[in-house]
């Protein structure tokens, strides 16, 4: 069994982080440059961590599979970033952001981590503004805010519909500065294919150069993974096509525990699926729910009608009806499930019947088309490109899609995994969002981890490592890891099967969506596990990878990633099967509120809302690899709440 020590500092919640920073060991500036740190990934977390560690004086090597760090998928975030600045004077505070995030995560996140996130949020905005991030501003020149789901205050900072790109360009500019002055060595088109563990400590990685196919080894005193989430297990998602789980999955195989793999976020406002050829689903920012109203026809027979012909009285604004306090700004898991329910009732719209309307008619009447265009013009344009429909004239059609994974590698308060020397940041770790992430909190977490948390906590580990003691990249563990990587690639290229990596990915996606998607149950998950086992067996025998081992070969990249997705899909189903409760994005049909429950009668929740079982499941599931073909081992980290009382999550 793995040893899971959360290392949460003692003392009052609001003083833990300050106290921890003070009591942690420091490393003197002359020694810092003797430590080499590998950072894999260059999204918000990876870029900000690389730049900041280099500013502190560490020797940083940054690896990214993209051709440029600026292309990491953080770039695609649209809506915004939360911070407890209270610039709007609407009652926000660090404590409120903390509380909203804990509640939004359905009481499945660590209190201490989330409080730290809320504290640091204010520094992030300062840092980004100083870097020149062109946030939206009011005429007085001060920063503007808007509202996002799961909150009743306006605390979201934004840069038109491309906050992710602007924040990433900020972090990338900091990284560029440190690359330019020699503080960071940047490796692009370089994909990590294995983690090297020496005497139980993470000490390096094995990398494939995507341009040449060359395999190289890199040793370091510590390894930081900031490689993003794993939603592409579902094949169709709002992720970039290249987003993958290979780095974290291979670290898992080397002994890092995987936390809460089944916690997946299904985002309520995406453009519906249109055909089998589809390669990705496009998100329509949650910010649209500020001014758009979601509805379906009350009567099934109206679903095929032109929406303009459906009278106001025949429309069901179901979120406003079911969750009157939050209305269209209900949290993502709740809004997604509600869409599924109304479509399951046969009231969905569009060709497939899997869609609901997001209607701007009222806002256009209230604000005028120009104002709506100013706020969301790029999103309306994107919608038009994809669907050929004009959302100023007719409501958008949207449907939930896989968008984010709250699960990830298990980390302690210092963001270190159970493997000493391995740190995990951003979406790649499991830590701050519990079972459901609130909108505009992913950017906040990525930058919090990278700019402020890791640069401070990494010293707690490095202070225990003697400077100059790192193993050589020629040592036995590195040789063995490289040999395994080479054998894996040779086997893929040599296999003379008939099915392409893409065909396996599509099939895996269908299995996952059907059995481990928005609604899960015991029988379905068991079936999913069996189907994945069969798929994995076929992948081993019947894969076809065209082209050569050396040089640019996208089929090799894809085949390796799909193989890892299959293994992770199995782990997600096992975790979902084990977790016999519903919480946040994890909905087990067996555990939901019904009309007979007192909480429904008191008006706290609706029938069909998720029902947690705190007595038995208030823990983090940390899965441990047990070897090829063996069932993974479950470790549990109990969630102890000192400040907040775990209660029924009500948005009514």
């Amino acid at each position, binding site marked *: 069994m793995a040893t899971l020590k959360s290392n949460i500092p003692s003392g009052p919640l609001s003083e833990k982080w300050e106290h921890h920073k003070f009591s942690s060991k420091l490393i003197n500036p002359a020694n810092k440059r003797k430590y080499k740190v590998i950072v894999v990934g260059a999204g918000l977390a990876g870029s900000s961590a690389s730049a900041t560690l280099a500013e502190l004086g560490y020797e940083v090597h940054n690896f990214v599979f993209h051709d440029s760090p600026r292309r990491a998928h953080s770039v695609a975030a649209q809506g915004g970033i939360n911070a407890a600045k209270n610039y709007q004077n609407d009652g926000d505070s660090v404590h409120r952001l903390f509380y909203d995030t804990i509640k939004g995560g359905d009481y499945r996140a660590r209190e201490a981590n989330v409080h730290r996130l809320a504290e640091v949020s204010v520094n992030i905005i300062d*840092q980004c503004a100083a870097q*020149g991030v062109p946030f939206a501003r009011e005429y007085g020149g001060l920063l503007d805010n808007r509202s996002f789901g799961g909150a009743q205050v306006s605390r979201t900072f934004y840069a038109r519909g491309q906050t992710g790109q602007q924040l990433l360009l900020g972090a990338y500019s900091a990284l560029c500065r440190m690359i330019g002055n020699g503080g960071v060595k940047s490796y692009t088109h370089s994909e990590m294919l294995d983690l090297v563990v020496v005497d139980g400590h993470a000490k390096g990685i094995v990398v494939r150069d995507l341009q040449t196919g060359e395999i190289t080894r890199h040793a370091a005193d510590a390894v930081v993974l900031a490689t993003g989430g794993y939603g592409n297990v579902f094949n169709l998602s709002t992720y*970039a096509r290249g987003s993958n789980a290979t780095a974290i999955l291979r670290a898992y195989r080397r002994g890092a525990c995987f936390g809460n793999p089944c916690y997946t976020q299904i985002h309520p406002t995406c453009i519906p699926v249109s055909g089998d050829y589809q*390669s990705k689903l496009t998100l329509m920012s949650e910010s649209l729910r500020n001014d758009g109203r979601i509805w379906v026809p009350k009567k099934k027979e109206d679903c095929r009608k032109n929406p303009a012909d459906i009278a106001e009285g025949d429309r069901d604004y179901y979120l406003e009806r079911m969750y009157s306090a939050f209305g269209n700004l209900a949290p993502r898991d709740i809004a997604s499930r509600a869409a599924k329910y109304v479509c399951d009732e046969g009231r969905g719209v569009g060709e497939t019947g899997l869609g609901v309307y997001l209607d701007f008619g009222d806002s256009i009447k209230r604000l005028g088309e120009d104002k709506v265009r100013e706020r969301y013009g790029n999103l309306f344009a*994107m919608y038009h490109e*994809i669907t050929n429909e004009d959302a100023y004239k007719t409501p958008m059609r949207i449907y939930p899609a896989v968008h984010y994974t709250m699960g990830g590698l298990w980390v302690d308060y210092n963001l270190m995994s159970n493997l000493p020397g391995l740190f995990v940041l951003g979406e790649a770790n499991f830590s701050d969002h519990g079972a459901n992430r609130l909108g505009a909190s992913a950017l906040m977490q990525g930058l919090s981890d990278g700019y402020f948390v890791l640069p401070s906590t990494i010293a707690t580990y490095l202070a225990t490592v003697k400077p100059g003691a790192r193993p050589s990249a020629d040592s036995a563990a590195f040789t063995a890891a490289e040999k395994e990587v080479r054998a894996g690639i040779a086997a893929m290229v040599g296999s003379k099967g008939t099915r392409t990596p893409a065909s396996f990915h599509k099939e895996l996606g269908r299995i996952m969506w059907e059995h481990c998607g928005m609604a899960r149950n015991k029988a379905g998950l068991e079936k999913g596990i069996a189907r994945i086992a069969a798929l994995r067996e076929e992948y081993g025998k019947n894969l076809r990878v065209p082209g050569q081992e050396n040089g640019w070969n996208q089929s090799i990249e894809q085949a390796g990633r799909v193989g890892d997705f299959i293994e992770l899909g199995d782990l997600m189903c096992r975790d979902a099967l084990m977790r016999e409760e519903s919480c946040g994005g994890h909905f087990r049909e067996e555990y939901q509120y019904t009309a007979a429950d007192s909480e429904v009668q008191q008006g706290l929740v609706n029938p069909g809302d998720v029902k947690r079982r705190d007595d038995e499941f208030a823990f983090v599931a940390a899965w441990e690899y047990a070897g090829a073909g063996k069932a993974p081992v479950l470790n549990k980290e109990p969630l102890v709440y000192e400040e907040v009382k775990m209660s029924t999550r009500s948005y009514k």
Partner: protein
Amino acid sequence: MKVTLKVWRQKDRNSPGELKSYQSPELSPNMSFLEMLDVVNEHLANQGEDPIAFDHDCREGICGTCSLVIDGKPHGPHKGIATCQTYMRSFKDGDEIVVEPFRAKPFPLIKDLVVDRKAFDRIQHAGGFISVRTGAAPDANAIPVPKENADLAMDAAQCIGCGACVAACKNASAMLFVSAKVSHLGLMPQGQPERYRRVKAMVNQMDAEGFGSCTVTGSCEAVCPKEISIDFIARMNRDYLVAILKGDPKAVRGGGAG
């Protein structure tokens, strides 16, 4: 619908390349252009042929990874749209579509339609930043920025670094890209202390990479998926000129007290 593709195939930088014809399988007009290439590639792979290498990632027009010159135009037929947001409904059944890589000497070819655009990163390393250490920032609202300036900076900052401007330019000039970066930071009060040093460093690196000069044909602006205005080039030229006139700041000598 079906189309005939004439695609640039080239094994690597050192091998000669050629346009090759492929008949597509049956397509849907609702497919994106890249999904069409996915379908063609599956078809090729199933026949044991090497799939067409092309760059792509986010497929929603923001990462700047996708490229392609489609029928002679970087990012295809539409204005203000990247290749990944181009849909097959923009073409007709039976069309012949010519697909080539972004061609420019500073963008060496990797394979087929994939080119190396790291020259852009090196320009950024030279000066595309505001020097602010993590933790050294004042309160965000301590630095008001007039809305007009912030909006104009944002117009420039939208650049996704795809390189279409270079591919469209007969001189392979990167002035639109560099001017967008220079203008974004130069318009913000935070960017003032390094304004002239930045423009000089970035322009010098741009020249060192082998990008050509701007002759103001405007083709870059016409193909830019974010519709960045060439006004920013004028802005950059002015800053560059001022930087040259100002000259390098005098070196500060001596060790100082203590």
